[in-house]
């Protein structure tokens, strides 16, 4: 039997040990090191991307670019000392699933920032939820309808479809074409680009010989093309989403013996995707908009930052690099967007949407350093990070190095 004296000594020793442990623990959590406690919390970045469904291919490319940017930022200390962790939701490019996804990211996962969605329809669906929760977001959307009054705390890394339309019409005017036809897809971006194309053509007193639409992913557009051919246009202004669709359009034109130039929006520049369907010879008269960092004039060179980005992402994901090549410019814009997020959160000293948006509207012009697309031009009137100065026209059939195309507007 244990004596009461031994019991008392043991109790005293245990009490003392407990006191020492409490003191040690308190010292470890003393107010002298507040940043350590904050640093322990990761910066949660919610991804709302289509990893299944009709846009799974661009969705997977964008995810790779985000992962690359996150690895770069985490290597350099994260966002305000917090490592970025990704919380991914697959929206299957469906606005209904976007709403469910954004609700989950905001209320359940309590993310600090959201990247996505990648369709304008999806963005229009989620902005009310993001605005209510004061959640800042960057999407990959191009509809000119997405003005700062619509997406108050939302931004986009994609080229504005309205600006692309202006560029396309300006190119047509420089070529002295007076009669053009319009073909666009059924997405929100295609429809809104069509409105701007019509306005711009009307402003320049050019004749619209026809206007047709096709469903995204359609395989035979010859009926639309034949209807347009009847108007005898000098060129076709094409606003697509995917390179595969563009390939089908070019095949249809060949079968109709419709040999006119095609001036395409951003979706038409995915050279390898177009070539897989129509072949390189069909692309000789195709011109498309893309990011300036990925267009090369005959006398100019490829910017060093573009080269180092291409090499960097190739090292980061050597197995998936081949899939990424047609969209390296998009990957670079996405990577830049994640860096802009870091700068904005650090500049605003907050993740609150109103503060981040206000900071970006005032300071985006100072953010170019280290970005592949150095001209960040978001402001109070436009939340598109990369404006007309970041946009050029290229020949998707003339790839001069991986993802870099010969300029058509030098």
């Amino acid at each position, binding site marked *: 039997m244990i004596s009461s004296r031994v019991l008392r000594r043991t109790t005293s020793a245990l009490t003392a040990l407990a006191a020492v442990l409490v003191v040690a623990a308190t010292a470890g959590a003393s107010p002298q090191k507040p940043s350590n406690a904050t640093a322990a919390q990761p910066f949660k970045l919610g991804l709302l991307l289509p990893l299944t469904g009709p846009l799974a291919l661009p969705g997977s490319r964008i995810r790779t670019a985000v992962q690359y940017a996150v690895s770069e930022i985490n290597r350099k200390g994260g966002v305000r000392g917090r490592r970025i962790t990704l919380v991914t939701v697959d929206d299957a490019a469906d606005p209904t699933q976007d709403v469910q996804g954004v609700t989950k990211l905001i209320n359940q996962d309590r993310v600090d920032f959201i990247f996505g969605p990648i369709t304008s329809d999806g963005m229009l669906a989620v902005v009310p939820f993001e605005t209510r929760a004061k959640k800042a977001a960057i999407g990959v959307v191009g509809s000119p309808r997405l003005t700062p009054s619509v997406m108050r705390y939302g931004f986009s890394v994609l080229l504005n479809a309205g600006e692309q339309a202006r560029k396309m019409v300006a190119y047509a005017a420089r070529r002295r074409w007076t009669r053009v036809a319009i073909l666009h897809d059924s997405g929100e971006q295609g429809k809104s680009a069509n409105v701007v194309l019509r306005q711009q053509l009307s402003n320049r007193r050019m004749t619209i010989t026809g206007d047709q639409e096709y469903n995204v992913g359609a395989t*035979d557009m010859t009926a639309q093309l034949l209807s347009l051919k009847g108007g005898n246009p000098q060129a076709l202004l094409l606003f697509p989403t995917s390179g595969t669709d563009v390939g089908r359009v070019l095949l249809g034109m060949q079968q109709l013996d419709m040999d006119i130039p095609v001036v395409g929006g951003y979706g038409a520049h995915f050279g390898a995707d177009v070539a897989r369907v129509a072949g390189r010879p069909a692309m000789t008269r195709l011109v498309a908009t893309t990011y300036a960092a990925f267009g090369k004039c005959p006398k100019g060179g490829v910017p060093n930052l573009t080269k180092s980005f291409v090499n960097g992402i190739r090292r980061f994901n050597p197995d998936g690099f081949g899939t990424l090549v047609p969209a390296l410019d998009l990957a670079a814009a996405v990577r830049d967007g994640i860096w802009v997020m870091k700068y904005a959160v650090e500049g605003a000293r907050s993740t609150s949407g109103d503060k981040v948006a206000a900071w970006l509207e005032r300071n985006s012009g100072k953010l170019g350093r280290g970005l592949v697309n150095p001209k960040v031009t978001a402001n109070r009137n436009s939340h598109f990070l990369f404006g007309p100065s970041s946009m050029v026209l290229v020949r998707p059939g003339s790839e001069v190095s991986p993802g870099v195309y010969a300029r058509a507007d030098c």
Partner: protein
Amino acid sequence: MEELGITLVRGIGEGSVYALVAMSMNVIFNASGILNLAQGEFVVLGGLFALLFLPTAPGTAVWIGLGIAVTLAVGAMMAVEGYVVLLPLRSSVEQHSWLVTTLAAAVIIQSLILIFQGPDPIVVDNPFGTFDFLGVSHPILYPVLTGLAILTFVGLRWFQTHTLLGLTMNALRQDLEAARAAGASVRRLQLSSFAIAGLIVGATGFFGAPLLGLSQSAGISFALNGFVAAVIGGLGNQLGALIAGPAVGMLSVLSIFTVGGEFKQAVAFALLIGVLLLRPEGVFGRPAARRV
């Protein structure tokens, strides 16, 4: 004339794909009362096998031989799906668990394609080139698909009227309980219907691959358009499906010429609603008597 050429060749060709999917749906529906929601995914599987196994420049013999092999493989796969779908039903069609199981099969197939093939569109080269008709050059595969639809219809007709298996499957359509009471092996017959439907959509996917917009998520559009053709023609009526499919295809193309491409899909569904309002049993369907 060019418009006529496109409407006839491409409208009928595209509609033939709807007809083939509709006929395959009817085979299963007649034997089991089930509408297989995974039907479109098996079209995609047929096309995926074409992408994986067709050499760069296949001769006609290789193309047809491989097509037959793929057709048989997809038929076997759909029989497996049928087994899973029929398992909880115990041959009854009173329950509606098939809605969940066929939808689950569609999702599983989509996911498997995504895992093993990735998200890239399934782009298969057209090995047979084009032909000129009314001033426009058309892929030869369009009339091939129309021929396949007619061949399938004739084959099914012969099967259902000249073979014991086909005749017994007809009996299922008329009265499942009576057929069982007469000693018919209902489960085996229903499984056979899934296999036959698999043969049809497997062949459609393989031979039509260069023309069809195939991707891991494309199955639903084939199922939807096939369903439209099946309902307009009269659910279960193979002649109705054979005629309704190309009719929908031609009307879709005509709508592009007359009202614009944005109304292409809407026209097909407007036609469906119109037929359902005027003839709920479909254009070629017969009103079913109801026992009271």
